[in-house]
């Protein structure tokens, strides 16, 4: 489960037959570097490796192989932060997709709709982005691709009224997914708009859509989205690149939620329910 760079330092621990402080020090340094390179927040990395070191040097369970003991600890401590998968229940709900510019919301909206459709639900997509040139066309085309009913108003600029009309028009759908324009914490007008949208829709689930390559700025973003409207889950996109998604750990700890899905490409089927194992071993490089 651990990447190649950590396997070497793990072997050093196993080789000594017992767990010595120097080997554990070297291992935690290697873990720190891997996690920092994966964009995990510095404080989180420090707390995590302190925990790992403390537990690794405790008396290990009788008969346990030292190497497996330490690997198990590293894994458990990461799962504590990452959490288990948080896929939504398969039932009637309105879902709002929020996030930074270009994070993958519109693409994810159509993937999520397709996901529910494959589970037998009736789903509708609403274009709640009245800013971006071509946003209407983009979501409309994606909706057609997965044969999902779509509502949008191409020339409109009152996003709240578009969304109201969409909810009304698609009221025979069990699940309605609303795509919104990209925004970040310093864009006051857009944050204000997001609050108005949230009040209008009162969605069961608000997902923060985050690019796997996001850096340290994720902390501020997650905090401000959480503070503005409250987040119910995180969706990580573009994990098919080389980015490890370390920013996701910060996002879930700032919003106190779980990772619901992973986007693994541009096609509708490139979408998976979050599973901690693969994610963590990737994180450890």
């Amino acid at each position, binding site marked *: 489960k651990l990447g190649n760079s950590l396997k070497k330092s793990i072997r050093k621990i196993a080789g000594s037959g017992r767990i010595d402080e120097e080997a554990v020090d070297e291992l935690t340094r290697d873990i720190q570097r891997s996690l920092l390179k994966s964009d995990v927040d*510095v404080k989180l990395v420090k707390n995590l490796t302190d925990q790992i070191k403390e537990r690794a040097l405790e008396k290990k369970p009788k008969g346990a192989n030292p190497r497996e003991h330490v690997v198990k600890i590293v894994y458990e401590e990461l799962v504590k932060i990452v959490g288990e998968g948080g896929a939504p229940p398969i039932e009637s709900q309105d879902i709002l997709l929020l996030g930074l*510019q*270009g*994070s993958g919301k519109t693409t994810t909206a159509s993937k999520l709709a397709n996901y529910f459709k494959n589970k037998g639900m009736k789903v509708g997509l609403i274009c709640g982005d009245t800013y971006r040139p*071509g946003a209407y066309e983009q979501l*409309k085309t994606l909706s057609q691709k997965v044969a999902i009913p779509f509502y949008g108003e191409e020339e409109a600029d009152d996003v709240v009224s578009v969304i109201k009309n969409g909810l009304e028009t698609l009221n025979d759908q069990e699940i309605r997914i609303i795509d919104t324009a990209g925004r970040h914490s310093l864009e006051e007008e857009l944050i204000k708009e997001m609050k108005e949208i949230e009040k209008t829709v009162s969605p069961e689930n608000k997902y923060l859509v985050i690019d796997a*390559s996001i*850096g340290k700025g994720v902390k501020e*973003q997650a905090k401000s989205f959480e503070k503005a409207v409250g987040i119910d889950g995180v969706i990580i996109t573009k994990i098919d690149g080389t980015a490890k998604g370390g920013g996701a750990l910060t996002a879930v700890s700032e919003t106190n939620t779980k990772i619901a899905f992973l986007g693994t490409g541009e096609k509708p089927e490139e979408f998976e329910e979050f599973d901690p194992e693969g994610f963590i071993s990737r994180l450890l490089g």
Partner: protein
Amino acid sequence: VILEEEDLEKPLSELKLGLVESDVDYDVAEKIIEEVKEELVGKEIKWRKDVGEIVEKALKDALLKIFDFQFNFDSYIQSKEKPINILFVGTNGVGKTTTIAKVSKYLMENNYSTVLACGDTFRAGATKQISEHGESLDTKVIKHEKGGDPAAVIYDAVEFAEANNKDVVLGDTAGRMHTDINLMDQIKKIKRVTNPDLVIFVDEAVAGSDAVERAKEFHKAVNIDAVVLTKIDADVSGGSAISITYEVQKPIIFVGTGQTYSDLKKFDSEWFVNQLFK
């Protein structure tokens, strides 16, 4: 007083952590700090208590040196034979299309005429997006059928520019992951066929250490000439500017400071490095 390694350990490791916390890639931060250390070890200073200040100044100078290039975009555009063909590349969602619209506006304000080439023949709404920009800017957009050959669109745009005395062709391409072999082959082919005068790599300031990886891969594939770093208006420290520049050793010519046409500024490395030390 001669500076020894032990005198430098603590201030250097604190600065390294500072760089990493500002989103500079871990390995790049390590290399830069290592170079600063080599520069300072054995150096003679007046008072040992000044070590912290001296180390910080040395790091500032090292960072400024990373951004020291001779390339001037404005003089390049002015002196280069027209039409100039500029290709924009990068991963998904970083801001290529929006940047092209902004660069077009910038050039038009400097009395150059532009042609936008919709080389993204893949993504839903791509043609519509760039066409709307072309309409708002009142500049020509060349587009083909969806699924068409991106190289052919850009080629047509250059032909159009030559026939109509247009100054600059701005070629958009679809976002692509540097890990996708087929798409990286495609971008290599697009470059080979359309023979751009400049290849501009677009990346976002909100990205963490992955910015280095993708800059490296795109540079290997198509030999980048310059970089545009977008979204610096978001709450970011912009360490990726350092990582990318250190890695590909090419200038950042513009930064994106928002979503409208006027949100394009020249990259000011002095201002940027000073920001980092605040």
